[in-house]
């Protein structure tokens, strides 16, 4: 039974679910967003702290409070770890690649150099009902980014 299941609940996913990185809400932050998945009631509050401007805009901190399944909690943990300390510009191709792989129903293999532990989440791409669980933190990040940039411009 667990062949498909183990491709979803990989050891890395289980590890991030049990001990999520960068969890909890911290200050300072440039924007805070709250996203809800109305079909399952999962919620994430995400804070983004940006510094600098234009091409050199840096993600200084991502903090969050996530209520959800193992997949969504692990996705938030992995995402925060990928984002913190990077520039907004260098994260864009990471986000695009991750979203494309998640939406590919398993046809697109993830590039570990680009998305790091994110490859451990790609098992969910074959479970259409779970794709939105994994993408919810990224949607929250994008919304926080738009809000931060609107405030800073």
């Amino acid at each position, binding site marked *: 039974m667990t062949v498909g299941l183990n491709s979803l*609940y990989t050891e890395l996913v289980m590890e991030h679910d049990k001990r999520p990185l960068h969890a909890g809400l911290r200050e300072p932050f440039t924007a805070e967003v709250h996203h809800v998945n109305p079909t399952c009631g999962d919620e994430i509050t995400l804070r983004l702290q940006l510094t600098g401007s234009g091409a050199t805009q840096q993600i200084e901190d991502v903090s969050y409070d996530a209520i959800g399944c193992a997949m969504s909690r692990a996705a938030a943990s992995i995402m925060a770890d990928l984002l913190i300390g990077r520039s907004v510009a260098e994260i864009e191709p990471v986000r695009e690649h991750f979203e494309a792989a998640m939406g590919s129903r398993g046809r697109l293999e993830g590039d570990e150099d680009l998305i790091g532990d994110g490859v451990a989440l790609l098992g969910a791409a074959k479970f259409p009902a779970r794709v939105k669980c994994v993408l919810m933190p990224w949607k929250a990040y994008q919304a926080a980014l738009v809000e931060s940039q609107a405030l800073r411009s």
Partner: protein
Amino acid sequence: MNSPSRAFDIQAIRADFPILERMLDPETPMIYLDGGATSQRPRQVLDAEVAFLTRDNAAVKRGAHRMASAATDAYEQARETVAAFVGAPSPDEVVFTKNATEALNLVAYSLGNGDPSTPPALRVGEGDEILVTEMEHHANLVPWQELARRTGATLRWIPMADDFTLDLSDLDALIGARTKVVAFTHQSNVLGTINPVDRLVEAARAVGALTVLDAAQSAPHMPFDVAALGVDFAVLSGHKMLGPTGIGVLWGRYEHLAAMPPFLTGGSMIEVVHLDHSTYAEPPARFEAGTPPISQAVGLAAACDYLTALGMETIAEHERALTDQAVRGLSEIDGVRIIGPSVGPHRAGAVSFDLAGRHPHDVGQVLDSLGIEVRVGHHCAWPLHRRFGLHGTTRASFSVHTTADEVEAFVAGVARTTDFFGGLS
């Protein structure tokens, strides 16, 4: 059609449901425990729809050709069958809608659409009160929130007791002279709790309030008789009672329907139309604007015949035994908290549980890998889950075709879920 005294032979019943032969993958048969979300359809229902569509299909109540008459006869025959199924004194009290949600919205909108010529009892306005319960499905909550918002009425609710039944200790304070509507579910889609309809009807009647019963979860699983229940309105869902999607039922007392303004307007529901105003048909036509779900009505009637032939009391007994088995089995698993009342006559076949705080999506995913199809999440009853400090639950719901072996597999699957996630704390 089935003979009315068909024996309850579970293997014969299973043979009526072609989908039960489905394999999820070459090793995994499908165990369908999600009839509470949508039921599977027996061959008799599928055949009835095909027979109608391949022989009698036409638009109803328009056109003078023989096909139009044949289709209209089939549609009206379906109304008679549904009326008999719910114990309605007349088929004119049965309105076909697109689903139970639309049926509830129909009542909620109509009660806000009146003018001074509408009887006061059928008109909700400022200062009036609408009473619901904390256990409602969103379909029997949000339409009343919206009616209150549109009219300036106040929404109140009967709270839950800790034992997963309604807390009726303050009922006298909650129902009063201002109460116009008491809307409640017959059977909770999450808890399996069967509510004391008689007590609520009595309290509502004492103050002249209308009662609206959400019977989407109850009517497919137990004897159901609107006359005996004494409510003013009841709604049913076709696809939760072995019938098609795209059709629901509103039953209402004729005297009410006859005095109520329409909800949706347009073709088929009119009497005379002028450019600047119109008059409306008598019920049920007044509430069936546009071309109705015709083949779905035929399919729904076949579902009513199918259930009636098995016997609603027999079905209730069958599902009660399965519920008993599931509740007892789950109770022996460490970390399981059953979200519903203890077994007994006021407990029906929806068994929801929390597994040591593990997210229901994760629980459902493991069960699905074993072929066990259950519902996960808040089941469209978010306030109820919040009341018990939960974000969601995992729910198994039983049907006429569910076997004791399937319930055993389900209980074993929940135990394996505990093992899979290991060290639940």
